[in-house]
């Protein structure tokens, strides 16, 4: 080893080349290298299989699930969610809507799945399904409806939640995500109050997290935001998470979805 170290003293020169490049450029280069071969593909494939597979107490597939564009229509559904659903009488995001379908069509208990910790059992399947559904809209532009009064109310609630300061550190979503061109440590922070931040930021989830090798849907993304904000635990599919989805999704109107993305 020593020998190599000595022989390599020469290579110290190349360190100069590195110094020329800013760390931001280097990080961008690193991210670029990961784009080709996003492990999210593995979850997308799994989700595609789950959609047509007969499962649950009713031994049925999800092929007739209505994600907002009619039974079985998947393409384009993701860029219009969350939206109001007349059959449940509430505004739902992708994951809470998948729970409705799993309950109605397959006979699973939506309540049980919502209570299951992330990364376990049926929660894993919900994440895989969400990954596939989102991927089916890849490259499409966000276009959330604000025509129903409940959708408009949820936007207003989401806006209030976004700026709500609380927890031990007085953090709001807005503390980190209401300005342009800021970063936390080395990570760029999207400004989620407008485009391109809202479209790129909100529109990137589900995403594969390289730091822990996990696939995260928007629900888990928001859950961990609240954890880092030092807030209590937001329930899966709860109104706060959906209202924030409406707020960010509407702000991202016209932005192109890149989900499923690959993230730190």
């Amino acid at each position, binding site marked *: 080893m020593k020998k190599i170290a000595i022989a390599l003293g020469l290579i110290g020169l190349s360190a100069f080349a590195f110094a020329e490049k800013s760390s931001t450029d280097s990080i961008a280069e690193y991210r670029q290298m990961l784009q080709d*071969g996003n492990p999210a593909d*593995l979850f997308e494939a*799994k989700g595609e299989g789950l959609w047509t597979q007969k499962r649950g107490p009713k031994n049925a597939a999800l092929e007739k699930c209505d994600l907002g564009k009619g039974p079985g229509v998947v393409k384009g559904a993701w860029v219009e969610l969350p939206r109001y659903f007349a059959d449940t009488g509430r505004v739902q995001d992708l994951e809470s809507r998948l729970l409705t379908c799993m309950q109605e069509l397959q006979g699973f208990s939506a309540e049980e799945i919502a209570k299951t910790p992330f990364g376990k059992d049926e929660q894993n399947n919900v994440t895989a399904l969400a990954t596939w559904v989102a991927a089916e809209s890849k490259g499409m532009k966000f276009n959330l409806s604000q025509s129903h009064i409940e959708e408009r109310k949820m936007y207003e609630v989401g806006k209030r939640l976004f700026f709500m300061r609380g927890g031990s550190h007085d953090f709001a979503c807005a503390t980190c995500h209401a300005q342009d061109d800021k970063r936390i440590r080395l990570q760029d922070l999207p400004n989620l109050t407008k485009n391109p931040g809202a479209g790129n930021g909100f529109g990137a989830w589900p995403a594969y997290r390289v730091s822990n090798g996990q696939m995260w849907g928007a629900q888990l993304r928001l859950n961990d935001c609240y954890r880092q904000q030092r807030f209590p635990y937001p329930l899966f599919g709860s109104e706060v998470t959906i209202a924030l989805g409406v707020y960010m999704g509407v702000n991202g109107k016209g932005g192109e979805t890149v989900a499923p993305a690959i993230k730190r």
Partner: protein
Amino acid sequence: MADPMRIRAQAAGDKATVRVLMSHEMESGQRKDGTGKIIPAWHIQDVTATLNGKTVLTAEWGPAVSKNPFLQFTIKGAKAGDKVGITWKDNKGDTRTDEATVS
């Protein structure tokens, strides 16, 4: 039973580039669980690639290869329609084989 791999094989000229994603924990053997006990290493250690059934590449991996591993390599003389097969085996004896057609 392990989840399927994603294999993409694209021909360009007289060769084909193969990109593979494998679904595997690749537990490093360095981490501790909640009680402070080391979580034993669990990783793919043997990878074989075939072209139309003939072995073209073998590889050995340690636990330092990242979770959900990625592998890229290029097969000479492969053309559209050829079959690329990938097999991995891990240190617990679990194995998985998937196949893709060169496009």
